[in-house]
């Protein structure tokens, strides 16, 4: 019996060893995968900075599909979905309506198994890139599905400004606490202690002055903006959404109105007007820019699919009008040569105010800082009065 138990134990140890070894070996066996590289490097990526002194640049994302041997998978179709970081009402970003939404969805032909695009990342946090690679020729290779994570830290400027704001709010609370916490002597014939009256008068004057400055400069800035609008409208050349030239027809269709937080679907179709067949031997260069700015929200260069189409869905996170421009140019090795065609579509984007809940939460944080300063000031003043009396 003892020998039987020993044999059973040794057998079990061997089985566990075999299972463990096979798991370790299989995990170390190279698998087909999608590799992500970025420009700038991932550690240097920062979210979009609105009204930056220097025009911000989108991040260049390169997704390379590799086989088990680490070689690029050729003649692939790559589908990409970019999901923004999840919504967090307790720690909001400056684009709360963008949180927890889809930023981009596209499917493109990747002759060399590489999908390269430029995308402006609007907020901090962990972006999810859902990639699906399928062969153009059926069963040429096993499809790959992979989820990649791209972490974008917050800009340090925001932390610095927040620190300054906290210091100011604490000082405001502290000052109020020191004044309110002092002994209040009411002179004969008066209804309020002089110090309190002075404090409240000063604060009220400050509030009036602040609101006046804000409103007056807002009015002046708005009149300046009207001039700027007319200047900006000339910085982006208008163009047709449908163009026929040199035996080709390029057509850009899709959603011309959208809202922040939602995807707008766009399609570019290239057709040979002579044969009526889709034209595939062309290069498509897509670029999306806000009408009043110079920075690119999205850019992509690729080839159309078998239908002569390129379909994509993008979110316009900045609630301002955008222009989508597609340039159709010939491939260098193609027999079809022509001067590039350019089609343009203007997109109206409706901005959405941040949720009231998020705004009230952050206002609560700021007000709490004032209250903390107030309590500290009151405690300090009472302690000093108590010490003076004793």
């Amino acid at each position, binding site marked *: 019996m003892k020998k039987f138990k020993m044999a059973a134990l040794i057998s079990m140890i061997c089985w566990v060893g075999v299972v463990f070894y096979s798991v370790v070996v299989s995990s170390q066996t190279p698998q087909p995968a999608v590799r992500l590289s970025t420009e700038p490097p991932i550690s240097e990526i920062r979210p979009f*900075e*609105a*009204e930056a002194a220097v025009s911000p640049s989108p991040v260049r994302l390169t997704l390379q599909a590799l086989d088990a041997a680490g070689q690029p998978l050729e003649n692939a179709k790559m589908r990409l979905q970019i999901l923004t970081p999840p919504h967090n009402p307790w*720690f*909001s970003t*400056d*684009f*709360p*309506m963008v949180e927890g939404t889809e930023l981009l969805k596209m499917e493109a032909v990747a002759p060399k198994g590489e999908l390269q695009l430029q995308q402006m990342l609007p907020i901090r946090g962990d972006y999810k890139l859902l990639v699906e690679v399928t062969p153009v020729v059926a069963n040429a290779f096993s499809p790959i599905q992979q989820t990649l994570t791209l972490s974008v830290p*917050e800009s340090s*400027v*925001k*932390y610095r*400004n*927040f620190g300054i*704001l906290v210091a100011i*709010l604490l000082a*405001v*609370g502290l000052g*109020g*606490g020191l004044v*309110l*916490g002092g002994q209040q002597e009411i002179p004969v014939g008066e*209804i*309020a*202690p002089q110090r*309190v009256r002075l*404090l*409240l008068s000063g*604060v*009220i004057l*400050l*509030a009036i002055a*602040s*609101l006046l400055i*804000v*409103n007056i*400069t*807002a*009015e002046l*800035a*708005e009149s300046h*903006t009207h001039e700027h609008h007319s200047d900006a409208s000339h910085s982006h050349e208008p163009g047709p959404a449908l163009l026929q030239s040199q035996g080709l027809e390029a057509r850009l269709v899709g959603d011309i109105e959208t809202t*922040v937080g939602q995807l707008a679907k766009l399609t570019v179709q290239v057709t040979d007007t002579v044969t009526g067949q889709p034209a595939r031997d062309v290069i498509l260069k897509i670029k999306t820019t806000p009408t009043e700015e110079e920075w690119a929200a999205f850019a992509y260069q690729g080839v159309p699919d078998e239908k002569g189409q390129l379909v994509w869905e993008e979110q316009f996170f*900045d609630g301002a009008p955008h222009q989508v421009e597609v340039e159709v140019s010939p491939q260098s090795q193609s027999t079809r040569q022509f001067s590039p065609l350019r089609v343009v579509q203007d997109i109206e984007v409706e901005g*959405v*105010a*941040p*949720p009231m809940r*998020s*705004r009230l939460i*952050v*206002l609560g*944080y*700021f*007000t709490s800082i*004032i*209250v903390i300063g*107030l309590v500290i000031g*009151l405690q300090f003043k009472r302690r000093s009065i108590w010490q003076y009396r004793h």
Partner: protein
Amino acid sequence: MKTSSIGTLGSLQQRTVRFTLSLPVQATLYTSLFALILWTVYFSTYPAVHNQMHSLRHHTLMVGCH
């Protein structure tokens, strides 16, 4: 009767003054005033204010703009 009602009114006025000048009320007014200023500067959707404060809002942590 007249003396009694005048006395009551005087007492009410004094209670109102005492209440208004009490520390909790003063502190609440003070805090509320600054909360209102903060709301105007950082969270108001009034277009003129939004446009003027646009850069400040985008460059301050946790402040949502659009």
